[in-house]
């Protein structure tokens, strides 16, 4: 793995942010970003499953026959989720009350199966680990940002809108639009730069 590849993989969580760019794993992102604690803890659980599923799947990528690779991936992910579920329900009962239902739904979070299919099933262990960490951090950052914005808005405007599902939809839409605008302006700047350089060369 050379430096260029490492950089590309490690920045994957930012450039290909699972929530804002790939638009994967929307259900937990909207449902459990109602306050910052729920958001951060669900983000951590998801990142844990993502990192370990990436590592295990890339270790087993030669042993899993191609025809049954999807069921095999799902079973690996589901077993990891069961581990997290057991841990949370026995050590963190309060957290289990607030995000318990969504921990079992990590199994069907598209980010995890998506990374397994697109990356871990084709790459060696170390790149898969880096990809998992980067994507996991990207997801934690996105969901925690949303949680923070929604909690702030709830404090300002009172509860009843921004801590409900409808507020989640609207805040995510607005934040996504802001990100789109930022990405577009960055791209525009880069384009102008290359045009200037081309002119100078000419």
């Amino acid at each position: 793995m050379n430096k260029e590849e490492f950089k590309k993989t490690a920045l994957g969580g930012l450039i290909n942010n699972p929530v804002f760019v790939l638009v994967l794993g929307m259900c937990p992102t909207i449902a459990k970003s109602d306050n910052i604690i729920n958001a951060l803890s669900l983000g951590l659980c998801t990142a844990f499953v993502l990192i370990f599923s990436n590592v295990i799947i890339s270790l087993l990528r030669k042993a899993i026959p191609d025809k049954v690779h999807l069921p095999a991936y799902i079973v690996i992910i589901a077993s990891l989720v069961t581990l997290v579920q057991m841990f949370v329900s026995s050590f963190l009962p309060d957290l289990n009350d607030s995000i318990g239902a969504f921990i079992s739904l990590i199994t069907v979070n598209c980010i995890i199966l998506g990374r397994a299919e697109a990356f871990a099933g084709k790459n060696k262990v170390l790149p898969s680990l880096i990809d998992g960490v980067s994507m996991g951090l990207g997801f934690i950052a996105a969901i925690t940002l949303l949680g923070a914005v929604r909690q702030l808005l709830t404090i300002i405007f009172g509860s009843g809108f921004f801590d409900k599902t409808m507020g989640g939809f609207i805040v995510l839409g607005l934040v996504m639009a802001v990100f789109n605008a930022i990405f577009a302006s960055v791209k525009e700047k880069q384009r102008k730069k290359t045009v200037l350089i081309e002119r100078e060369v000419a």
Partner: protein
Amino acid sequence: MIMDYFLAIISIVISGILTNNVVLNQSIGMCPFLGVSKKTQSAIGMGLAVTFVITVASCVCWIIYTFILDPLSIGYLSTVAFILVIASLVQLLDIALKKMSPTLYSSLGVYLALITTNCAVLGTANSVISQGLDFFQTLITGLAIGIGFTVALILMAGIREKQELYDVPKPFRGFPIALVTAGIMAMAFYGFSGLSFT
């Protein structure tokens, strides 16, 4: 006694379709809701496919949990068992649709396989088990949630078909405007939460 049971069934139906709509009130099952809601025709097909999978999957999961996992006290394996049931059901549906309706099959595309990872299916199976419903109630819950999902999907598709004609600000094009639309729809559906049959 029978009256109580009947009322419980009615409240399951109302809550599944309106007051506790799976997409707009619980934000479960967002991927197909945002992905397949561009055309009304494929939205209807997707809604029916998901309704079928949710209903059959929650019934099969209920049977497996009640007669296998619970007696052997290995309830903690439920996530693994349920996801296997759902994945095989979707595979079956895939084969059946390919044979019976190739046009619908091609319009659903990759989202058909993605029903496996639709949170609404696993979420319903889990919630049915955790509420301790009986078999008939499970069947009705599955149907009601599926219909609620279909209603939300078709409404959304209708709105997005109209939206194509309007000049949306550039950063909002695509998913952001769809999310804001969904938020406004969710507000409307939140109005139903005053309905109560218990």
